[in-house]
């Protein structure tokens, strides 16, 4: 425990913050010192208590015990309005912007002066122009939010906080929706803010970002603050170990893929949603036995729709899907059940919306999709004993904790829910696995296991299609990487060629120079 010891002024200090929700001890005697004009990272797994702590600082929750000192003075924060008045600003993971308002209108929303808008708008425009110059936060002030890319929307959020006089800026998982290039730009903005004396609290579960952007880092685990480090004095391995409480292997070990016959392919798949937006535009991909094909892209560029179409959940408007010898097109009826019968396992992107049913017991969730299987049913009644035993077996196999098939699905942690879903899908021995966001909101320990098993499945000759917004994950697992942008396939790179810069450019629909020749001659065939 080496709390940064210095006499410089402390922007924010927490002393013995404690918060319980019923029987859950979300924050346990938290101490934290954040020196003014620094970038301070808070890292921890899901459920470690980061968000609770930030909500206490921002006045959403009132702590059961403990003091918050801002610039050395004890402040009672009972609402976010008070927090704002003491110079605390927050940028939420999900933006709080009105889509059909302009940037300027969004910024003054809730901070209008007087009943007439004109004077407020005029004043805000002046102030924002100054801020933009000072912090390199250029945003077109009259553009509508819905027309701006996410990176710019995030800048609007930051501007909103600064406009309200924020001196301490809290950012909750700010890079989840950004391309690597946008992330880099965000970190540059952080530097500019720091140079102007703004203090930044960065909450994230990504180790790389902590190391790239912060001056100091504090690690939380199970509601407690377990360590404070100077970022320069620590590394990935140490932080991961502190977060999890044991040694973790971050690297995925794998050998060269031995791709075999084609199992799954699409040709010119298009899909238009109910609102008339083209979500998939002539998508052609193929997945062979014994390889992992990764689909990279900023979230919302058609990856989800591609997965849904392949899983039989949505009907393409045109084009074909070939699964083994079966061809599915816009005319043929298809359902999730039919696709499952063809030997396709689907681990959905959102486990709480699709993967399991929160109010069901674990054993019930563990047969979702296979509820009509003869294994679980007699002629008329189902077989509760078999269902129970099968679930217990899956739990044992995949180390799902607690090992209680009768426990409600919602009461498992994200990682254990995910392990149960993957166990269910893998256990039926499908030829093809569609895997969406396998480790979103999953703790590091579980990530380790899931990644290892995905590679094992590949080596057993399964064809695996992986969609993830985590570039690290895509790069660690995939043999080929396809990048999607706005419903199109931008291009494909092999695992050897891929790096963050290349993928980042492709995610922004720019074809990197080093790929241009190869793709021009042999599109989609670089393996």
């Amino acid at each position, binding site marked *: 425990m080496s709390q940064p010891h210095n006499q410089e002024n402390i922007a924010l200090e927490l002393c013995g913050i404690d918060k319980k*929700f019923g029987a859950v001890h979300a924050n346990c005697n938290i101490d934290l010192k954040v020196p003014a004009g620094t970038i301070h990272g808070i890292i921890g797994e899901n459920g470690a208590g980061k968000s609770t702590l930030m909500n206490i600082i921002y006045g959403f929750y009132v702590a059961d015990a403990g003091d918050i000192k801002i610039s050395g003075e004890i402040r009672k924060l009972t609402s976010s309005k008070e927090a704002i008045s003491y110079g605390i600003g927050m940028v939420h993971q999900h933006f709080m912007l009105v889509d059909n308002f302009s940037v300027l209108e969004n910024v003054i929303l809730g901070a209008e002066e007087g009943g007439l808008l004109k004077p407020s708008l005029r004043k805000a425009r002046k102030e924002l122009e100054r801020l933009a110059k000072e912090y390199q936060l250029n945003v077109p002030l009259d553009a509508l939010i819905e027309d701006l890319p996410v990176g710019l929307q995030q800048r609007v959020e930051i501007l909103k906080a600064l406009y309200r006089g924020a001196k301490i800026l809290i950012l909750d998982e700010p890079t989840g929706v950004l391309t690597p290039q946008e992330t880099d730009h965000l970190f540059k903005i952080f530097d500019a803010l720091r140079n102007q004396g703004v203090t930044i609290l960065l909450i994230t579960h990504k180790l790389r970002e902590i190391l790239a952007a912060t001056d100091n880092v504090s690690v939380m685990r199970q509601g407690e603050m377990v360590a404070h480090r100077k970022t320069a004095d620590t590394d990935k391995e140490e932080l991961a170990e502190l977060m999890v409480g044991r040694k973790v292997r971050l690297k995925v070990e794998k050998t060269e893929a031995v791709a075999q016959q084609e199992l799954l392919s699409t040709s010119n798949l298009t899909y238009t949603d109910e609102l008339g937006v083209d979500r998939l535009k002539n998508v052609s991909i193929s997945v062979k036995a014994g390889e992992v094909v990764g689909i990279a892209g900023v979230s919302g560029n058609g990856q989800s729709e591609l997965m849904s179409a392949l899983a039989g959940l949505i009907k393409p408007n045109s084009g074909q899907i070939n699964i083994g010898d079966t061809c599915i097109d816009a005319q043929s009826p298809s359902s999730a059940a039919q696709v499952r019968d063809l030997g396709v396992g689907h681990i959905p992107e959102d486990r709480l919306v699709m993967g399991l049913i*929160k109010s069901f017991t674990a054993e*019930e969730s563990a*047969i979702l*999709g296979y*509820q009509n299987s003869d294994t679980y049913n007699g002629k008329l009644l189902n077989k509760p004993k078999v269902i129970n035993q099968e679930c217990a077996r899956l739990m044992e196999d995949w180390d799902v904790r607690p090992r209680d098939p009768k426990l*409600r699905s*919602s009461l498992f942690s994200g990682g254990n829910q995910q392990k149960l879903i993957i166990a269910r899908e893998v256990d039926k021995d499908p030829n093809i696995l569609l895997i969406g966001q396998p480790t979103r909101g999953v703790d590091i320990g579980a990530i380790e296991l899931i990644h290892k098993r995905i590679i094992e499945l590949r080596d057993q000759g399964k064809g695996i299609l992986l969609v993830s917004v985590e570039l690290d994950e895509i790069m660690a697992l995939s043999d080929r990487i396809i990048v999607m942008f706005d419903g199109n396939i931008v291009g494909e790179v092999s695992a050897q060629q891929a790096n963050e810069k290349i993928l980042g450019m492709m995610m922004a629909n720019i074809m990197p120079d080093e790929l241009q020749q190869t793709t021009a001659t042999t599109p989609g065939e670089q393996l």
Partner: protein
Amino acid sequence: MNDSKIPAWVSIIVLPLINILFAFAFSAIIFLAVDVNPIEAAQTMINGAFGYQEGIGYTFYYATNFIFTGLAVAVAFSAGLFNIGGEGQAYIGGLGVGLVCLGLDHTLPFWALLPITMFASMAFGALWAFIPAYLQAYRGSHIVITTIMFNFIASSLMVYLMVNVLNQKGQMAPVSRVFEASAGLPGFHTIAGWFGYGFAESPMNLSFLIALLCCVLVWVLLWRTRWGYAIRAMGSSPSAAEYGGINRKRLIIIVMLISGALSGLLSLNEVQGYAQQLKLGFVAGYGFTGIAVCLIGRNHPFGIVLASILFGILYQGGAELSFDFPNIDREMIQVVQALVVLFSGALSLMLVKPTERLFVYLDEKKKSNNTNAAEA
């Protein structure tokens, strides 16, 4: 996140009891306002419902109706569908029972008629639920709207039939002829007689046992079959059900057919059991009260039996109450019933948090006592 801080038995038994106590407390205030001693009133009610054999018979006769309509609402609700057309489905179900009885009562005794009337009541009720179900599944019309409109259509249709077709020749009254006595369901007093027991005459009849059987069947359907799994999956998470390969449209139709059939069975009790003739308005709001019964019974067949008996008590005891106390009229009894619905249904979540807190507090106290004891 953590949504189960209290043991299951508290939420299943203690919470509903507390809710009902609240309702009674408010009823007591109203009784006081009209100069009726609430304790006396309660005594009269309990006495009216359970004090003598005929009263008990009436209580269970009412409860029979509530079990059928409560189950009908529960099955649909398990699938996330709000069937408020129980009223009309039961009414049309009665038409089925009536037609069978009128046609065959001279030739068949009740035990041979019963399978046919059961089938007819279920088929007619299911048919009346089928149209809204089809419209919901394939045309996207909201089932709440269509089922409620079908109540009105059922009502008009029955008036037409009773006035123009099924009434007796040369009579003004919109009622059919009375069925042959041999065609009616045996009353509970008759059944008790078969086994050598005496029981006062009351409208309670064989259909009460059929209602209990339906409870068991519904429980088995929902919790022990793949179809029940699909129904509950769709009710809990439509997107997960779709992911699980469940055909939503087909399931909507199946569920509504079951729900309508259960509503239709009510008419066994009313038409073949009690009135033994077809007449207007015999459903008398039981279909709507079924929604409250289902809410109070927490959507569970066992809870629905208990809630049905509670409403049986309110109906039968309430009738007795308005009979004995001149200051209390039928509308006041409806206010008491409404309070029970209000507290158990609409405000059922109001007391969850305080009860939860109480139990967490008691739990921690127990734990600290245990650790103290362990240290000592």
